[in-house]
């Protein structure tokens, strides 16, 4: 089968993939995202454009993807179930496919109470697993969620989902991954890995159930920029596990940025050799310029 996207091609070929996140601006200026894109061009195989991450209003993922596509960079459309019902989500999939956006990451989404419009009504018509299933059915069977035939062109889409090895209860993390794969997730991007030992154990469990053979797992990496960010990630971002040891390393560092970078590079090197990990997903929050260095020094450049 021919690949639907560059990312799929790379993963199908058994090459180690790199994806990177690009946060769209809090405004309508296309230059802002284009500048970030220029910085990252050539350092990842595809680029996630976040969908109103942490429920803060920003330029839409869809528009960001179009801007990247115009620059010949491959986007990954992020879609959350928080802001759109099944009608809007399916419509967006059709539109994305029409505009050559061929990767999608299905998320439930951060709750609106965390964002800058906490009074908004959350939608949650469907959840991420149902979204994966709906997109797969549109793509493979040419059917809408309601069972109706799509009369004017099935969408072409490489379907992704998120997994969090650190969430509780632990047992359900693997079950939920399995459900996402069953629903149709072709690739998985994990929560950022800070606790490598825990991640290795999780991957053992993933492999023991053969799940690494049924999807492509990309492990998340986030370079810590400062003590403040470390503290925020450790204590305030739900579902993130920053071990005490990393916190201490950041606290004792004379050059916080360098320490954070070193930790990330070290993590990348460890993740690269984990059996069943087919790539890394780099989320450099407000620190995009570090991504190229990280990719180069971990031996993943050129892409």
């Amino acid at each position, binding site marked *: 089968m021919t690949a639907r996207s560059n990312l799929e091609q790379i993963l199908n070929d058994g090459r180690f993939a790199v994806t990177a996140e690009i946060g769209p601006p809090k405004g309508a200026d296309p230059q802002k995202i284009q500048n970030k894109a220029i910085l990252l061009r050539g350092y990842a195989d595809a680029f996630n454009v976040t969908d109103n991450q942490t429920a803060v209003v920003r330029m839409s993922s869809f528009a960001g993807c179009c801007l990247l596509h115009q620059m010949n960079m491959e986007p990954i459309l992020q879609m959350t179930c928080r802001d759109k019902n099944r009608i809007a989500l399916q419509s967006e999939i059709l539109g994305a496919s029409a505009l050559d956006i061929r990767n999608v990451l299905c998320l439930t989404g951060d709750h609106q109470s965390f964002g800058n419009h906490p009074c908004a009504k959350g939608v949650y018509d469907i959840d991420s697993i149902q979204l994966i299933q709906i997109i797969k059915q549109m793509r493979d069977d040419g059917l809408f969620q309601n069972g109706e035939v799509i009369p004017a062109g099935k969408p072409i889409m490489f379907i992704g989902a998120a997994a969090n090895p650190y969430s509780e209860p632990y047992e*359900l993390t693997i079950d939920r991954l399995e459900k996402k794969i069953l629903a149709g997730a072709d690739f998985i991007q994990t929560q950022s890995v800070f606790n490598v030992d825990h991640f290795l154990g999780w991957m053992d469990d993933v492999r023991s159930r053969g799940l690494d053979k049924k999807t492509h797992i990309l492990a998340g990496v986030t370079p810590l920029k400062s003590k403040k960010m470390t503290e925020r990630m450790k204590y305030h971002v739900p*579902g993130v596990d920053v071990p005490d040891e990393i916190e201490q390393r950041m606290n004792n560092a004379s050059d916080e940025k360098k320490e954070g970078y070193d930790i990330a590079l070290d993590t990348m090197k460890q993740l690269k050799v984990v059996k069943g990990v087919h790539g890394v997903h780099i989320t450099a929050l407000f620190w995009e310029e570090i991504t190229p260095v990280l990719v180069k020094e971990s031996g993943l450049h050129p892409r």
Partner: protein
Amino acid sequence: MIVTRQKSFEDILKQVDKGPAFLIGCSECATLCHTGGEEEIIQMKMNLEQKKIIVTGWIVLDPACHLQNNKRLLKTHHDELLQAKKIIVFACGNGIQTVRELAQDADVITGTETLFLGEIKHTNEFEKRCIQCGECVVDNYSGLCPVSRCPKSMLNGPCGGAKNGCCEVDEELECIWDLVYKQLKSKGRLAQLKTIQKPKDWQKATQTRRIVNHDRSQQP
């Protein structure tokens, strides 16, 4: 039970304007919530009178959402109701509207916020249990409802943000998925969660606006 909270006295005063007012409570949910029982109505009467607002009378309906019953009960207060310019109802949003159907010239105003359908956990402690989705799925989750008790209505597992069993959206409340997990695990039925639950038919919640039980309505 339908859980309500009394509006602030300032807000009520604003709506009451100069009065005179007639007060209505409800013998069921609003009594249990202490928002519209006899005690609260008498207290409200005193508070209003202190502000020089005439209270023409009061009643606790049994319950406020019963239209035919209300007609009968309100008859004895006919004159008091006629003298009132404002009828303040301390019941749920339903009770208020049922009273509204029977009011004549007076404005019907609400003394409460209607919050949710929930359980009386302890006296004065209430927790949401149902959002009336019209398609009850609690059997899939060991009798627990993620539709109403998970802020994201996750049907296929937890969102991943829970910490020490508490919900990422409100640390004071348990993550319902943590409870579902524990329940099913203790019964050895975790495998049940592997089934992918299909999208809900929200039409059942949003489009069902009236039901008539024909077979029962014939009975005495």
